[in-house]
C-alpha cells in the first residue's frame, strides 16, 4: 500500500517536472501571433494554402483557417469572434448581417456555370430557357431541344453563395422551385454526373469530364468571357474584417491581395484574380469599366 503511494508520488513529480521542462523549452518564437479565418467552404482551400505559404515565410505567425459556411463566417466576423470572415457573398446580401463595420476585401473572382448530365443532349440554353428549367415551367429536356428525359434539378442549399449568384445573374433574379438541395459542390457534381436528366450549377473549378458545362445564350463558360462580363454568372470571393484590419490580419490580407498569391495560387485553384477583370461590379449589380488587366 505505502509502496504504491511512493510510486504514485514519484510519478506525479516526474510528470510535473516534465511539464515544467517542456514549458521552459518551448519555442517562444513560434508561439507568436495567430489569427483565425472562418466561413465559406468554397474559399477555404485558397485561404488555407495562402496561410500555409505566409506562415512558411513569416516565422512566428499562425493562420487558422476553418470552414463552416458563409453564414457562419459572416455572423462570427460580425460578432468579432474571429479576425477574418470568408464569404461568397456581399455581406449586405446575406440576411441577418446588419453591421456597417464590416470591411470588404475581394480576393478572387469565381465563375459559375450550369452543369448537366452528359446524356441530356443539351449544350446551349438561353437565359429564358434556363429560367424556365429551374422554375419548373419546363420539365423535360426535349422541350429545350434535348433527349426525352425528365429534368432533375439539384440546387445548392438556401443561403449558399453559389445559389444566390446563380439565381441573381443566371436566372435574372427568379427563384428556383423547391427541389433537391445539396450543401456542397463536390456532392452536386457527383450527383449530376450519375443522375440522368440532372442539372445544377458549380464554380468553374469543379467542372470536370464527368459533367457537361452549358453555354448560355451562345456564350461559353470560360475565364476570358468572365473577364469582360460576357459570361454574367460570376461573383467575388470576399475576406471580411470587422473594421479596418490591423497587425497580422492586415499583413495577411495584403499578402493574399499581392501578386504573389494572385498570380499563382488564385489561378491554380481555378479562380480569377480581380486584377484580371476589365470591369467591376458592385453589390447592386452595377457594372463599371476599369483599366483592364495589369
Amino acid at each position, binding site marked *: 500500500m505505502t509502496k504504491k503511494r511512493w510510486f504514485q508520488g514519484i510519478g506525479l513529480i516526474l510528470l510535473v517536472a516534465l511539464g515544467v521542462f517542456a514549458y521552459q523549452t518551448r519555442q517562444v518564437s513560434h508561439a507568436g501571433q495567430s489569427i483565425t479565418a472562418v466561413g465559406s*467552404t468554397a474559399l477555404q482551400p485558397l485561404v488555407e494554402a495562402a496561410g500555409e505559404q505566409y506562415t512558411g515565410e513569416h516565422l512566428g505567425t499562425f493562420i487558422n483557417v476553418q*470552414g*463552416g*459556411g*458563409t*453564414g*457562419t463566417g*459572416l*455572423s462570427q466576423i*460580425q*460578432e468579432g469572434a474571429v479576425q477574418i470572415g470568408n464569404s461568397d457573398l456581399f455581406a449586405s446580401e*446575406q*440576411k*441577418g*448581417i446588419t453591421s456597417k463595420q464590416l470591411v470588404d476585401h475581394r480576393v478572387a473572382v469565381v465563375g459559375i456555370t450550369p452543369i448537366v448530365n452528359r446524356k441530356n443532349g443539351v449544350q446551349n440554353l438561353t437565359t429564358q430557357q434556363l429560367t424556365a428549367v429551374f422554375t419548373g415551367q419546363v420539365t423535360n429536356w426535349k422541350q429545350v431541344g434535348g433527349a426525352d428525359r425528365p429534368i*432533375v434539378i439539384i440546387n445548392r*442549399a*438556401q*443561403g*449558399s453563395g453559389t445559389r444566390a449568384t446563380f439565381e441573381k445573374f443566371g436566372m435574372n433574379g427568379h*427563384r428556383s422551385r*423547391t*427541389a*433537391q*438541395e*445539396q*450543401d456542397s459542390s463536390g*456532392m452536386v457534381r*457527383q*450527383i449530376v454526373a*450519375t*443522375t*440522368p*436528366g*440532372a442539372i445544377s450549377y458549380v464554380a468553374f473549378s469543379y467542372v470536370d469530364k464527368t459533367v457537361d458545362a452549358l453555354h448560355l445564350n451562345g456564350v461559353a463558360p470560360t475565364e476570358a468571357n468572365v473577364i469582360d462580363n460576357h459570361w454574367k454568372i460570376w461573383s467575388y470571393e470576399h475576406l471580411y474584417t470587422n473594421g479596418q484590419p490591423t497587425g497580422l490580419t492586415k499583413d495577411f490580407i495584403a499578402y493574399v491581395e499581392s501578386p504573389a498569391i494572385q498570380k499563382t495560387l488564385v489561378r491554380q485553384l481555378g479562380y480569377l484574380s480581380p486584377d484580371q477583370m476589365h470591369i467591376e461590379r458592385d453589390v447592386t449589380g452595377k457594372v463599371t469599366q476599369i483599366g483592364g488587366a495589369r
Partner: protein
Amino acid sequence: MKEQSTSVASLERQLKKHSKAAKLEVWGRVVSFSALVLIVAVVVAIIGFVASKGIATFTTNHVSLWDFLTGKNWNPGIKDAHGKPEVGALSMIVGSFLITILSALIATPFAIGTAVFMNEISPNRGAKILRPVTELLVGIPSVVYGFIGLSVVVPFTRSVFGGSGFGILSGTFVLFVMVLPTVTSMSADALRAVPRFYREASLALGATQWQTIYKVVLRAATPGLMTAVVFGMARAFGEALAVQMVIGNAALMPHSLVDPAATLTSVLTTGIGNTVMGSLQNNALWSLALVLLLMSLVFNLIVRLIGRKGRLQ
C-alpha cells in the same frame, strides 16, 4: 455490573466511530453524484440552448406555431403573399416519420430473426459471428454509410424503382442497415432475459422448437422487443449525415417513395452553415432541432410506457 456498563459504552463508541468505509461512502457518493450533476448540467444546457433558439422563431420572429407545423412551404428567406415568412415544416416532419417508420418496418423482422437465431438456434455461432458482426455495423461511421448509399443504393433504387434514385426509399434502405445492429442487440438482450425454464417447459410438452420460440419466447419477450424497435426508431429519427446524402433534400411533401424528400435532420444540417446566427432563417432551423428533441422525448416516453406495461404483466 459497573464493568459491564463501561464495556457497553466502549462498544458503543467503537460502533459509532466513523469507519474508513463510512468516509469512503461519503466520498463515493459525492464523486459519483457530481459526475451525474455534470452530465445533467450538460444535458440541460444543450436542451435549454436548442429550446431558446427554437422558440425564438415563434416569439421574436412571430411565426405562428400552427403555420410552422402545418405549412408545406419551407423558404425561410422569403415572404409569402401575406408578408409572412414561409416556414412550414410539415413536409420535413412527414419525411422524417415516413422514413423512420418504413426503416423500422423492414428492420424489425431482420433484427428479431437474427436475435432469435443468435439466442435460440445457434448460440455458438451467435456469439462467434453474429454478435461481433452487429457490433461492427454499429461502428461504421455514418459518413461512410452515406457514401455507400450514394454510390450503391441510389443507382440501385433508380434502376429498379425508377425516379432519380434520391428519395425516401433510398433513405429507408440506408437507415435499415444503420438501425439493424441497435435493434438486433437490444432484441437479443430481451430474449436472453426470458428464463430458461420457459423453453424447457414448452419443449417438454412436446412443442417444436419453432412453436416454443413463437408461442413462448417471443410472447414473453414482447415488451423488450418493442422497446428495441422504438429505440431503433429514435436512432433513425435523429440520424443526419447518411440520410442527407441519399434522400435528396427537397423540402416537398413526399408524393411517392422515389421522389426527393427531406427530413428534419437533413434540412438542419444542410442549412445551418449558410445562415446567420440570430436571423429568422437560423432560428427556423433551430425550431426543427427543437421538434427533433421533442420527438426524442416522445419516443422515450413510449419506451418507458412499454417497459411499465411489461413489468405489470
